[in-house]
């Protein structure tokens, strides 16, 4: 049996999730200019939101997904308003903001563990049907196909929105130079707040899709954050388009990397690739 088609399918599945997570990560990084580790925990916040509303209270997915996304966006927005904005106003360095965001991650993770226990929860039982489809010699479930679709559509929306709207242009301006943007009359504080809100929704969406496919646990935030950040760095940190390329590159390296060597080397392969990029090509896959 030829396993290449299946490895490609596996890479696409992983790459789609990385794409979604890297999009939100890059949006936040490009404006706020610090590595927001708290972003990772939003996957768990939103996943548990859906779990609570659908599995515990019995609401339909059509209701619980938007509500959970909203909650995740608000949590991200509040983290900015209550913690990062005051720190930024005091000209705190990126390292301090990074540590503060790590605090946010562990704080929210602990709260989730207290409320929902730290046991692993599969969300797949919420789905009424999730057929496995055979595509060109590989298999993917319906949900995984939908996830891939969402990743592509979401990337397109973000790209169009950045290029086409006034708001998007303001974000690009901030990412170029925050001080100058302020001088020409952009309300940077508010705008960054909105970016955190949108980033929270995107991260949460990733969390829901992960939950429906594999499952959720309070500690899922850090590993998924690392994947998103690695994808973003490999593509070119802060560059929203390059993040998509980085996500798929990472997914393919990861899944094809363990074809000939044993699977326990997967994380080693990922971080070797990351170190190679950080050392020799810190600007990422594309020229600046």
């Amino acid at each position, binding site marked *: 049996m030829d396993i290449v088609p299946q490895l490609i399918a596996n890479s696409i599945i992983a790459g789609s999730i990385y794409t979604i997570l890297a999009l939100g990560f890059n949006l936040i990084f490009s404006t706020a200019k610090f590595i927001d580790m708290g972003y990772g925990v939003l996957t768990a916040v939103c996943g548990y939101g859906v779990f609570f509303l659908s599995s515990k209270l019995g609401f339909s997915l059509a209701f619980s997904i938007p509500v959970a996304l909203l909650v995740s966006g608000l949590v991200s927005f509040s983290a900015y308003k209550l913690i990062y904005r005051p720190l930024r106003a005091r000209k705190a360095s990126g390292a301090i903001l990074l540590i503060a965001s790590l605090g946010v991650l562990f704080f929210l993770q602990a709260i989730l563990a207290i409320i929902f226990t730290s046991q*692993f929860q599969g969300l797949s039982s919420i789905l009424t049907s999730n057929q496995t489809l055979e595509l060109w010699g590989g298999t993917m479930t319906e949900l995984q196909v939908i996830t891939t679709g969402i990743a592509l559509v979401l990337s397109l929306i973000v790209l169009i929105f950045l290029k086409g709207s006034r708001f998007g242009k303001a974000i690009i301006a901030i990412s170029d130079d925050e001080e100058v943007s302020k001088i020409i009359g952009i309300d940077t504080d508010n705008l960054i707040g909105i970016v955190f809100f949108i980033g929270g929704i995107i991260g949460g969406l990733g969390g829901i899709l992960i939950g429906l496919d594999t499952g959720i646990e309070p500690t899922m935030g850090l590993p998924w954050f690392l994947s998103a950040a690695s994808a973003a760095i490999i593509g070119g940190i802060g560059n929203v388009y390059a993040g998509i390329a980085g996500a798929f590159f990472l997914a393919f390296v990861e*899944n094809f990397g*363990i074809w000939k060597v044993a699977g326990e080397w997967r994380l080693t392969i990922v971080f070797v690739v990351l170190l190679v990029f950080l050392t020799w090509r810190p600007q990422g896959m594309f020229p600046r």
Partner: protein
Amino acid sequence: MEPDAQGNGSSVAKTAIWLVILVLIVGGLIVYGNKGKEKKEEVVKEPIKIGVILPLTGDAASYGEGARNVYQIAADEINVAGGVSGRMLEFIIEDSKCNGKDATSAAQKLVNVDKVQVILGGFCSGESIAATPVAAEAKVTLFSPGSSSPDLTGISPYFFRNYPSDASQGKALADTAIAKGWKKVALIQEQTDYALGVYKAFAEAFEGAGGVIVKEETSTANSDFRSQLTKLKAAKADALFVDTQTPAMSERIFKQIQDLKWSPAIIINDATAGDVKVISTYKTLLEGALTAEFSADPNNAQFAKLTADYKTKFGAELPFQAYGQTEYDAVYMIKAAIEAVGYNGEKIAAWSRTVIDWKGASGSVTIGTNGDRVGGHTVEVVKGGKIEKYQ
């Protein structure tokens, strides 16, 4: 000059406040410490403290909760009937999270702060392997009712267990696989001491008989096994051995096996087989799956009483019955030990090696000189979402 003087004044005040706080803390500690001493002298019949280490958070928490409930049932029974030599049993429970690091700090806390002479646990093999040196150093007995790694056999005179080693689990499964005519087995192993122990025992017997094993390892933090499973599927083995530490991990793997439209013959270890819910959820995939457990005997009167009591007290079936029986016995064995030789870690450890044909919920218990329970696993098969004896 004024600001300077003010500065001096406030720093003097600050120093004074800190001094007062220091005096209060030190004084408080002395008074409190004395109080403890007085108490000890006054009350002769204070409770006997038993340290307990088990996983209460993480994927393995499902084992820990069941174990805690079973311990409580046994201790309540003992205390209602008058305790151990007139003293009540009291547990001091620590969360060891199914890893060596947390088990070590839990054992250190129990040994140094609570000064216990006996620790019940760990549950996961990795916990017991890490906690044994701590207990041995302090001459405290470590008594595990669930750790089954062969690496624990003869690890220390202070360690013993009333659950048999996985050497017998691996061998029983390998013998059955060979009898079924399987030549090649694909195996996915979680990187923990327990799962490694099962693999080693299985590999020794299976490869010894000329079988081939294609193995992939995965870390506990991993949740994407697709490409590893794709590789194992391509190996065209006669069966797939899912060798994990917890049912939660197996659940994730089972889901992804189904997503790959793969329906291999499956072997599972006793960690997964004990989870009634997972076995029934994946009953189509697991139909005909082989496993080997240290099975409980439903006709044993004490075991029947335990399952009934568990249901009335906690409103649920006794989970992981194979472990429940030994956990229940463990508390009674500690009672027997203390009554025989007193509350002393060194003497209890020595006592454990003299246990022959002790009757409990798990049947007749005999502990060998290597600290292992004599006895073993029986092969079982999954049929219609339930576990049955393999014929």
